[in-house]
């Protein structure tokens, strides 16, 4: 049964002669060093005493967030990453983006993956239009390209639907508006590997539909898309393969329907 289903997924992959890997995650372990955790005293005298006695800071704790995860992603795939809170989903995405060092194991990528998270604020004290310009230039677009795509980006974000908000500083935006603008800026460029961390959950229904369409477009342009979400419906709509992480371990990797079914049984939905 499983074989038959995987056959259909393989057929669904865009017609490239052979499957080209874009991201290879090879037995990756990630350990966070957390400052200010635990029960150690944080007072100045305690800190001085530690400096004098050269003891390790008890406030520093190590958290083993990802334990030996391996998978390979191919061009044209959209991969959902699911799991309960704290299972290491965002951590593995940040490691693929090169923002977190791995403790052991290696991550190979094709080009520079871009991570799009809801918490990644751009420049809050600058206006929306300045953010579009700076974000585009920072991603390596030329001034001319940014000018050409500016209107598309603003229209896609839907920021101006309720009046001229694009000329207001980003700190005045609601969290949903800010997330929409950030997604629109990052999605304006064709990425080889785009990773989206629950960004779709923040927009309203109309924006969710637009962004799902944009994700499909990006896949057609031979990119690879990763999507972290707790919304199983949006994973079903956009992804053909799902990786299930639990407590930092890879529990299951396979076609969307199989994995989500098992996940829903597991969580008792």
């Amino acid at each position, binding site marked *: 049964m499983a074989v038959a289903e995987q056959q259909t997924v393989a057929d669904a992959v865009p017609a490239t002669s052979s499957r080209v890997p874009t*991201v290879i995650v090879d037995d990756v372990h990630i350990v966070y060093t957390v400052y200010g955790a635990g029960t150690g005293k944080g007072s100045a005298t305690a800190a001085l005493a530690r400096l004098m006695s050269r003891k390790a800071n008890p406030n520093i704790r190590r958290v083993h967030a990802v334990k030996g995860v391996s998978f390979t992603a191919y061009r044209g795939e959209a991969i959902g990453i699911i799991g309960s809170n704290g299972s290491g989903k965002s951590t593995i995405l940040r490691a693929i983006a090169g923002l*977190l060092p791995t403790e052991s194991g290696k991550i*190979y990528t094709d080009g520079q993956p*871009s991570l799009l998270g809801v918490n*990644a604020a751009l*420049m809050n004290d600058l206006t929306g239009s300045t953010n579009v310009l*700076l974000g585009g230039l920072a991603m390596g677009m030329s001034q001319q390209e940014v000018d050409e795509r500016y209107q598309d980006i603003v229209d896609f974000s839907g920021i101006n639907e309720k009046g001229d908000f694009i000329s207001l500083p980003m700190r005045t935006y609601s969290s949903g508006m800010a997330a929409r603008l950030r997604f629109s800026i990052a999605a304006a460029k064709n990425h080889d590997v785009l990773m989206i961390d629950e960004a779709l959950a923040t927009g309203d229904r109309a924006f969710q539909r637009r962004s799902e369409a944009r994700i499909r477009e990006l896949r057609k342009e031979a990119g690879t898309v990763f999507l972290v979400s707790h919304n199983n419906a949006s994973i079903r709509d956009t992804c053909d393969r799902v990786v299930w992480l639990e407590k930092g371990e890879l*529990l299951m990797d396979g076609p969307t329907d199989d994995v989500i079914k098992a996940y829903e049984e597991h969580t008792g939905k």
Partner: protein
Amino acid sequence: MSTVSETTHDGAVAVGALAAPSADEGLSPAQLAAKYGLTVSGARPGLAEYTRQLWGRRHFINEFAKARTAAQYTQARLGQLWQVMTPLLNAAVYYLIFGLLIGTSKGIDNFIAYLVTGIFIFTFTQNSVMAGVRAVAGNLGLIRALHFPRASMPVALTLMQLQQLMMSMFVLIAIVLMTGEVPDASWILIIPALITQWIFNTGLAMIMARLGSKMTDLAQLMPFILRTWMYTSGVMYSISNLTAHAPHYVRILLDVNPAAVYIDLMRFALIDSVTSAQLPPHIWASAVGWAVLVGVGGYIYFWKAEESYGRG
């Protein structure tokens, strides 16, 4: 639970077989990566490639500095006027204390121009250092969201300080003219003096950016170090008057201080009563030397930790 782990096993095996079409079968992940030209994520590019990427982001750097300058005073009623007001008020405070109350002006002609030049030039270096300390830590959102050479941040922030200094220079030139100086050929020296100091500041900001990204206490500590530096740089007194009877090595130490070098050069350019006889020997050599040493050294030092910024 047991059924789940069994499914996992089956699934992983099935996908693994699927993932390796005939040609790629049996390749280790590293070999597979090498075959398709994949690179280790987050690895630091070589120095030449890094410089090329940084040059490719020059429009970003320029726009970032411009936008930041514009946004700096948006919360203030007087807005951009503070760009001129801040250095003016600083100069007024120091003139009150060091010119009128303590009287370090003894033996200096045109003390107002002398003092204001010193303050503006030192402020340029001081603000570049403080901006550098916060360059990575203060832009984590941008650094974590988008990929660009991280050196863009300290470079842009120093460029922003240069733009701020340009505003101050108009004030400075107005003050200098009002105090009776006459423009002459030596004013051309303003340009090389500013360029060397800017390169020096950029390198210094990059050093501080790397240190500040790891040592979070630095932002608290720097104001004290910078104040000490300012008081030893002859901002409000003349080093040559002070060290007339001091041991030789003290004089040399005070004279090679880069802040003192750039201040002396600007005073020499602007103020007629500051003659080359008052300047330490080889001052242009030290100005260029400091710019090259700190500019290139700071750039390499910053690049060495490129992959670690914004992590953790």
